[in-house]
Structure formats: structure tokens, C-alpha cells
């Protein structure tokens, strides 16, 4: 299963959501579907995409927040899984694409390939109330649909191939991304009178 296909498949459903992605291939594949101002690409600070999502979800109870994460990033901030489960925002969906590889930084295998680490078990053990482990496009779409329909914190661990885009680059400077993302949320709140 290709992560790019999975992202393409959920792209239409992300239009009305607040989305945070990790660096590298995952960010590029979402950007290549077409940038929207409700997307924030965390191109560094590995591990913190989930924490940003938590801060957003706790403060935007009327929005649906989606984090597109990866195994390498999650392994750098495992405590965040426990923090998310403790505060359990009902409007947060945490999608972890597990390609078993630090693909964007040289393709070194991570602990999910070379060891026995099972991120779905770790999420479950951290207290996440709904964890799905999927490895086919059909199961992925079903898990995402369930998560978006559900008023509870959901974690989806999706096994994907260690394949990324053949190019990197965005016509979007990093602070520009942050400014437009913040403005998008501010204007949306003004419109809804929140």
C-alpha cells in the first residue's frame, strides 16, 4: 500500500478539517494533492506534529483536527501518545503511516521494522480509546471513515510501503505556512462567531 494513494484518497475529506503533517515525504505528498491553508507542514522538530494537533484540538472543540504522522516521528515522542490519551480530545484523529523507515533522511529502518515495536499496541497501551491497525486501502478508508464519524480520540496505524515522492519542494516558505494556517483558523472562527 502506498502512502501517497492513501493521502490522495482522504484528501477530499480533509478540506474542512485542520491538518498537521510531519516532514518530508508525507508533507510533500499532501502538498502535491493541492495546498490548502488549513494544512500545516511541520518540516522539522520531528515528533511534535501530534503535540501541535493536541494543542489545536483542545482549543478548537468545533473543528476536526487530523494529524498525519509517521513511525520515525512517533518513536521520537512516544510520551505524546500518553498525553493525548490522558486529555482525550474527541475531535482528534491521529493517523500514523508506518513505513518502517526513516525514508526522508536516508531510508534507515526504524524499530518497527528492525525490532518488534508495534505502534498500535503502544497507542493502545498509552490509553487511546480507539486504535485501528490496517494494511489495505479498504481497511484504511473504513478506519478513517469511522474515526471522522466518531466523537472520540482515534488512532489509526497504517502500514505502508517505504516509497516517497521523486521530488521535494514547495512554493511556500515555512513562516508563510504558519501565518496562513493561523489566519485561516482565525477567519474561520470569526465567520462561525466562535
Amino acid at each position: 500500500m502506498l502512502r501517497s494513494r492513501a493521502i490522495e484518497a482522504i484528501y477530499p475529506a480533509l478540506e474542512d478539517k485542520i491538518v498537521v503533517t510531519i516532514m518530508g515525504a508525507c508533507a510533500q505528498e499532501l502538498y502535491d494533492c493541492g495546498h490548502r491553508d488549513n494544512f500545516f507542514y511541520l518540516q522539522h522538530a520531528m515528533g511534535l506534529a501530534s503535540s501541535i494537533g493536541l494543542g489545536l484540538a483542545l482549543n478548537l472543540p468545533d473543528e476536526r483536527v487530523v494529524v498525519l504522522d509517521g513511525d520515525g516521528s512517533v518513536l521520537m515522542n512516544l510520551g505524546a501518545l500518553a498525553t493525548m490519551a490522558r486529555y482525550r480530545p474527541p475531535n482528534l484523529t491521529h493517523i500514523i503511516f508506518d513505513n518502517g523507515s526513516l525514508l526522508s533522511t536516508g531510508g534507515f529502518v526504524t524499530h518497527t521494522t528492525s525490532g518488534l515495536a508495534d505502534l498500535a499496541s503502544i497507542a493502545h497501551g498509552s490509553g487511546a480509546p480507539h486504535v485501528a491497525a490496517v494494511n489495505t486501502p479498504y481497511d484504511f478508508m473504513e478506519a478513517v471513515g469511522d474515526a471522522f464519524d466518531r466523537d472520540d480520540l482515534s488512532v489509526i496505524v497504517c502500514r505502508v510501503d517505504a516509497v516517497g515522492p521523486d521530488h521535494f519542494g514547495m512554493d511556500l516558505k515555512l513562516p508563510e505556512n504558519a501565518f496562513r494556517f493561523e489566519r485561516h483558523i482565525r477567519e474561520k472562527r470569526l465567520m462561525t462567531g466562535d
Partner: protein
Amino acid sequence: MTVSLENSKAVYQGIKDAGIRFLTALPETWLVYLLQMADEDPEMCLVEVAKEEEAVGIAAGAYFAGEPNILLMQNHGFLAAINGIVSLAQLYSVPLCMLIAYRGHIGEPYPWHTRGGIVTEPLLQALQIPYSRAGDPRRVGRQIREAHTLSLSALSPVALLLDRDLMED
């Protein structure tokens, strides 16, 4: 030495007066009363993290959501959070207002705090993070408000170091 309840109240009142209703923190001894007050305050949302770098991400999310917020941590937690501060807050021009318990400076009896105390201010300077030291309970409220104001206007991390004079009786 015991943690000052009266001065902790002054710090907490300063946080409230600055309009802050969202705190991200990692518990530590000098912050114990502050965190109890936050926990018991129905107006305040307190998120306790497993490690301080998480707090940088959560604070950035709160900022994007339009929620004025502050981080509470020990200076060793600041050391643990540096990559997040540099590669999220500074890289993306995201404000960050940090109240940091300044352990390990003059008067420190515990050996384990000393090395972190010695490097705290040089690191803040090297990272170009504006900071002040807060030692006077009559001034700390204003200092919190001003640190928060600067973080928003400069779109930068700003630190207020909570000194021994303030936090211990």
C-alpha cells in the same frame, strides 16, 4: 527551604491577569502550588506533558487556535525542549512564552541542579531568546504580562526565569 505559597499566588495571579487560560506544564517542585492552583481553577485548562518538548508543540497548536497560553517548566526542561523551540517556534515564527523555574543558580544546595543552572542564561543568549529574571513578587505580574506581550509582537520565544528569591521562602 520551602516553596513560597504566597509568591506562587502572586505568579498565578499574574498569569490570570495576563489573560492566560491555557497552560502547558511539566510538574516540578517550585511549580507545585502553581500547578495545584491551575488544576483547581475551573477557568484554566492545564495540560501536563510527559516531556517538555511536547509542550512546545501543544503551545504552538494553542497559538494557531487563537488561545493565549504560557508554558511552565524547570530550566532542565527548557534544555530538553530546545530542538522544538528552535525547529518549530523559531523556524516558523511562532510565539512562545515560557516561565522557567531557575534551578541551580547562586544559593543552590543540590549538586544535580548546578550544571543546568550554570548553562541556562548562556543558552538563552545563544538562542537569541529574550529573557528577564523574576525575583520580586510585587513585579512578577507585570513581568509575566510583558513577556507574553513580547512573545506575540516578536513572534518569538520569550523566557521569564523564576528566581530562588521568588519561589522559596
